[in-house]
């Protein structure tokens, strides 16, 4: 499975693509900028009944109801704070609009295919299934995430599939 993914990642990332990087705890992640719709601050959400705690609730974004996920809660990154610096990345993932709370947005970087190395099995907070590979930027390691795959996964519980409550 992982092998296949890595191959896929290698094939798909021809030449350079732009990635939005953000931090989650101590780690830095990158996602394809094409999936990013906008970045906004954190607003009050409306709680959703019986949802896993990382699903903070829903917000109204210009008339559209958008679920908000806190990745820090999803990955058990300890105490999370909501303040004026808290950032929500609004993603457009396979036609769905989803808001993702992260610790901060760092940068937009262009990565060439060969800059993304296959990820070994390692202790990222993220399941390696959703990792396209690892890239090095100014000595920093960026974990490149296949955000579409992650967000449409069962474990996120964002779509009606086999219902799965908190998996963390």
């Amino acid at each position: 499975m992982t092998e296949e993914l890595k191959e896929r990642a290698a094939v798909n990332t021809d030449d350079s693509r732009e990635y939005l990087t953000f931090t989650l705890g101590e780690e830095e992640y990158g996602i394809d900028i094409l999936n990013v719709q906008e970045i906004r601050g954190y607003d009050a959400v409306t709680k959703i009944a019986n949802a896993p705690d990382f699903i903070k609730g829903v917000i109204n974004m210009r008339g559209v109801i958008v679920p908000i996920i806190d990745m820090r809660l999803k990955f058990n990154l300890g105490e999370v704070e909501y303040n004026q610096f808290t950032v929500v990345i609004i993603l457009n993932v396979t036609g769905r609009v989803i808001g993702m709370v992260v610790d901060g947005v760092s940068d937009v970087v262009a990565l060439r295919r060969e800059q993304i190395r296959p990820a070994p099995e390692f202790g990222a907070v993220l399941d390696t299934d959703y990792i396209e590979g690892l890239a090095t930027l100014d000595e920093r390691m960026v974990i490149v995430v296949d955000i579409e795959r992650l967000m449409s996964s069962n474990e996120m519980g964002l779509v009606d599939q086999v219902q799965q409550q908190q998996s963390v």
Partner: protein
Amino acid sequence: MTIDMSQFYQVFFDETDEHLSEMESLLLELDVDQPDLEKLNAIFRAAHSIKGGAGTFGFTDMARVTHVLETLLDRLRKQELKPAVEMVDAFLEAGDVLRAQLEAHRAGGEYQDERIEQVCQRLEALTAGEPPPAADMHAAAPDSDHPEPSVEGTGWRIQFDPVAAGIAEADTLNALADGVAELGRLQRVDEATGRPYRWELVTDTQVPAERILEVFDFVCDTHHIRLEPLPASGASVAADPGYGLFDAAPGTPADTGPDPGYGLFEDAPGAAGADVAESAMARDAAAQEAGYGFFAAAPGSPDPSGEVQEGEGYGLFSDAPGSEQVHARAEQDRAETAQGYGLFDPSPGYPGAAREPEGNHGDPDVHPHPPPEAGKNADTGAAAGNAPPPGGGQERRQGSGRPPRKPGGGDSSIRVSVEKVDQLINLVGELVITHAMLAESASRLDPVAHENIFNGLSNLERNSRDLQQAVMSIRMMPISFVFNRFPRVVRDTAASLKKKVRLKLVGEDTELDKGLIERLADPLNHLVRNSIDHGIEAPEKRRAAGKSETGEITLRASHQGGNIVVEVADDGGGLNRDKLLAKATERGVSVSENPSDKEIWQLIFAPGFSTADQVTDISGRGVGMDVVRRNIEQMNGRVDIDSAPGEGTRITIRLPLTLAILDGMSVRLGEEIFILPLTAIRESIQPRPEQLKTVSGQGRVLQVGDEYLPLILLQEVFDLGSPAQRIEDSIIVLVDTGQGRAALVVDELLAQQQVVIKSLETNYRKVEGVSGATILGDGRVALILDVDELLRLSHRTVRPRPSTTA
């Protein structure tokens, strides 16, 4: 000039759809004992129009079905045959087949099913089945709208060109003749005088054209075969003075040419037989000169086997009004062709003949646009039919894509995709919300100092509400779209149950949201079937009860306030209180002490109330009724029942006018605000402590009168975590659910308001206990509660057993 015919397909599909619906409703209204000629004509017209379009646009399979359909209808409207119930059945079946064919073509394929052949055969058998006495025919003809001669064949004239058909060998020809001769007495009339050959087959009974074509189909392409019925006798045709004209034709070579695709029609109106004969000969002479035949169809023959002989053609009456201009043009064009019509009296209308050799028409066997296949030929059509569109000329295939359709000049409406309308509705919804947010911000301002802002805001509010209504009205459709299917449903259901049922439709013009119309169809279907099955009694029983044998079902729609009310009423036996109560006990469905009638009637909507047992006349009513109720509630509607023993049952569905807007009550629970649909709310009370009881020390119930209602505590159900206010200090909203009444505990009732319904599923997923979301005036999202699900969820958390405490 090539024209992409596919650009007209969509219009054809749409109009055919309308024709089919019209045909069906007319058929259902048709009284076979006293048929209304107007209706028969209208049904004929619908079939006829479909056939015309299908032929033109190359949907030969539909042309074939409509052809046999039309043939029988034509005989009916001319009163040559008496309508019968079996005919109506066959027509309805043909309509179903056509619809299937239409849908297949819409999807770019072709419907293939043995039903097609079956229904055609059924129709043909019915057409041939009852030859009317000759006297009747003639008596009827003058009364009908179209006093065409009613010549009924007792045989067929077969014309074919053996060379074109590829039957060169004499042996083959003889074998063919033998084959045909098995069907009747065959005369090979003129094989000597040149092609085409003409045979005459005389039969004692009616032989469908297909039978003959089948014989030919063994040896050649039946495209080249023309069939027309032989007149029953020369005398009967001649006796009709209006058509004596064509009597001269049989036997003369003039009319026997294979249809070249078109011909000119020369003879004077009202000419005596001699003149006709003369001009016929003249035509023939000219025809040979020009190298093509003249008559597109044989004289006096009603179209017997359809498309085979129904070639493309046109003609000009040389001496008819308007033809002077044609003549003038012709002479102008080429004066030298005068010899082509010098023979005729007055003949200048003939210009085309001389010009023809430039075109395809010189060769009678060239079919630039083959006529639709008929009969056995349909098989070849079907075999080749996988490539859409079937049949058709080259120009059809050259088109790439489908250009946007141009509305006809007579159209005063436009077709717009629902998507676009929904987008508008969404945008208007946003406008309404934006206004609400502005108004809320402005409420902190001093009204005197900011008079302009407040005036502007109130204008904005009025305009956006008006706009909202106007946009909503685009989605509104008359309920007749769903009502119209019921004549058929009632007819079929009643017939299968051997009951007599009349359907009455009231308020078909009542408009409601298109989305609701679509979703209303299934529940109504269920209710109507149930009414026929379990409401309306068998004819004997009705008679015994002193009622008319024919039961009546009324479908009634009306607007009441902001709601639409749809009733399904029957004049049947009504619901039986005792039986329902017994059933409830048997099924373990809880019922309160001394239940009211209404409450008992609601039992039929309880899940699993009645499933298998269909013995008694009420038991079956429960089948799927819980689903009906659920469906209606999903549309934010509610269902009520009234029933009186011996008088009937009335089921009333109340729905909001649209799916996009909901009348709701906003309620507060801790920090959260929820919307409760008004349709679910019965009343709200402030509970007294003594009304609150616990069951088994756990489940809590609220005593209201004699009833013990389950308490729904949202904090628990939704796991909100916030410390619940004491129930005694709360407000309790009594709500109607699929499982009876329940008591929903909230902290505060805020306001009654209309809300725009938003889907949670667009970007998230279904949330249990919630039917959707809306955006409040301050821009926050509020969830819309689904009380049925809430009760179910609360059973899961606590499990009160409400009726056992009594």
